[in-house]
């Protein structure tokens, strides 16, 4: 009988099997979830050809809900005047084309290629203007004032998105998403256009410089390593309390059980 088979009836065998099962499940889950995100659009060059392509994409993919003239239907709002920035944000974060109507569209792998995204964004922008996709220079964070970004973020963003951009609950099933995967362009566009329930922070309320400061703060913080260990999601005391109870106390109870355990009866004892 092999070593492991001989020990199959030991009490620890049961725990070992459960632990193995948990590890396996966790590994499988980790490999099948996890999302990527597309790169932001590069500097847009509007041309008639691009707008025509964009119109074609729009008619095929978006018009069902948004109407052939982008005038909106009961299912979806009008896109007239939202600007290319809004479209670029929604499509590049995979929220649009929407999978299903619901309280909120979730971030997802984008369904259109970056080129297609740019095209349809330019088409919508050509309809009635609106905020444009920012240039790379506009979203560059070099020389940004991170401290000011922190102040602005705390006063105007953290109440929905959480101090670390980990997201938070809104009403009726809506939520402010986590900012983990948002590119600088997407952050800029979101502030500028106020997607879904998010308020609009136009360029005269929060200036482009200030937007860059906020972007610098967000991108800086989320890449800051956690010197204290695993971040536990940077959610705050809720997860800390869970870990305290489930982890710490449980470990201590196991230790207590070991220390006070009755001695195993062996033949030579």
């Amino acid at each position, binding site marked *: 009988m092999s070593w492991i088979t001989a020990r199959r009836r030991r009490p620890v065998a049961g725990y070992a099997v459960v632990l193995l099962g948990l590890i396996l499940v966790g590994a499988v889950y980790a490999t099948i979830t996890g999302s990527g995100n597309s790169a932001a659009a590069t500097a847009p060059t509007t041309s008639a050809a691009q707008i025509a392509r964009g119109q074609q994409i729009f008619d095929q993919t978006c018009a069902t809900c948004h109407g052939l003239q982008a005038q909106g239907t009961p299912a979806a709002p009008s896109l007239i005047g939202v600007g290319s920035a809004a479209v670029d944000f929604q499509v590049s974060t995979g929220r649009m084309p929407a999978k299903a109507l619901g309280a909120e569209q979730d971030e997802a792998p984008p369904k259109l290629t970056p080129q297609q995204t740019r095209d349809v964004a330019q088409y919508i922008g050509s309809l009635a203007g609106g905020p444009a996709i920012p240039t790379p220079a506009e979203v560059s964070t070099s020389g940004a004032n991170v401290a000011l970004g922190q102040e602005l973020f705390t006063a105007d963003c953290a109440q*929905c998105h959480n101090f670390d951009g980990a997201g938070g609950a809104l009403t009726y099933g809506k939520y402010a998403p986590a900012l983990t995967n948002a590119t600088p362009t997407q952050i800029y566009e979101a502030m500028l256009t106020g997607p879904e329930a998010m308020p609009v922070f136009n360029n005269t309320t929060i200036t482009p410089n200030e937007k860059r400061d906020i972007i610098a703060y967000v991108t800086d913080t989320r890449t800051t390593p956690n*010197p204290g260990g695993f971040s536990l999601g940077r959610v705050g005391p809720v997860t800390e309390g869970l870990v305290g109870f489930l982890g710490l106390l449980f470990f201590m109870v196991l230790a207590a059980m070991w220390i006070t355990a*009755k001695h195993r009866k062996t033949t030579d004892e």
Partner: protein
Amino acid sequence: MSDPSAPQGLPDEPAEPPAARHRVIGTPPPAQARTLLGDGASGETGAGDGSPPMRRELPADPSNPVKAKRAERVVALCFILSMLASIGFIAAYVGLEVHSVDAVLRSNLALGVSMSVAFLGLAVGATVWVRRIMPTVELTEERHPMRSSPEDRAAFAETFQEGAEASQFVKRPLLRRTLIAATVPLAVAPLVLLRDMGPLPGTTLRHTVWRKGLRLLTYGANTPITSAEFSSAGGMITVIPDGYQDDPEALAQATAIIIKFQPGVLQPPTVLNWTVDNIVCYSKICTHVGCPAALYEQTTHHILCPCHQSTFDAPRGATVLFGPAPRPLPQLPLTTDSQGYLVAASDFHEPVGPSFWERG
């Protein structure tokens, strides 16, 4: 093995239980008990009893020397590991600097791991020592009832009584009453000393620093704002009074938010005279317990306080829709100054923030 004259009638040991070995965590081993004292006849505890017992109570050595020797090596290994970890801790402290996030991460990891191993080594070693090297023993100790003997109780009562009489406390009411009278103000005095811990509230909570003509600044950037700049419907921003950027006490009462609406959305009970170009200003201090109520949902026009989810209807005077807040958010009257910047027309027309007794 048990002494037949042992008190408490401990039965002779039964044979070992049959069938499969079962490990019961937490319940004690079966009685291989020996009583604590040789002279169990009186049933007294070990305390305060005549001469100490003559015979040995604890076995000197474990029953299985081979296993004990093996365990001893395990324990020694644990202790040596612990020692090395402690030395490692000191080395990590000396060798690893901090002063940057990455450096702190490394230092924390090194110090923490070495400390954990040091303690774990001691813990595991000590546990194995107790369980496998110290001989297994189970002893019985008698409890004495908590209640003292009637004689002791009577004696105490008598002593107490005698003392009370000797002190004359019971017999002389004048002494008694004046003593009590003396202690009362003495007990109150320390509380009185606390009076200067803070100023009297007066009417401080009824007002904020907002007054006519005071500009609204966007917090952080601290720049004033015109209605032409704050032009996008669905916009929201935090504003503070001009000149009070570094005054937390003022900000704790005066912080506000401005929201821009499409035409026709704002309606009573919002005071439309206090709005400028469909821009309305509400106090940011939640009327529940004072958190900044700052979540604004552009689509539903709801202001949500993240602390306890009080929800206010922004187009309708911030009326409470859900949650524990008792009152709408106060509205700040807005107007514009000569250069077009948004300014307050006056202070809030009611106290901001949580309820208090004198609020009325």
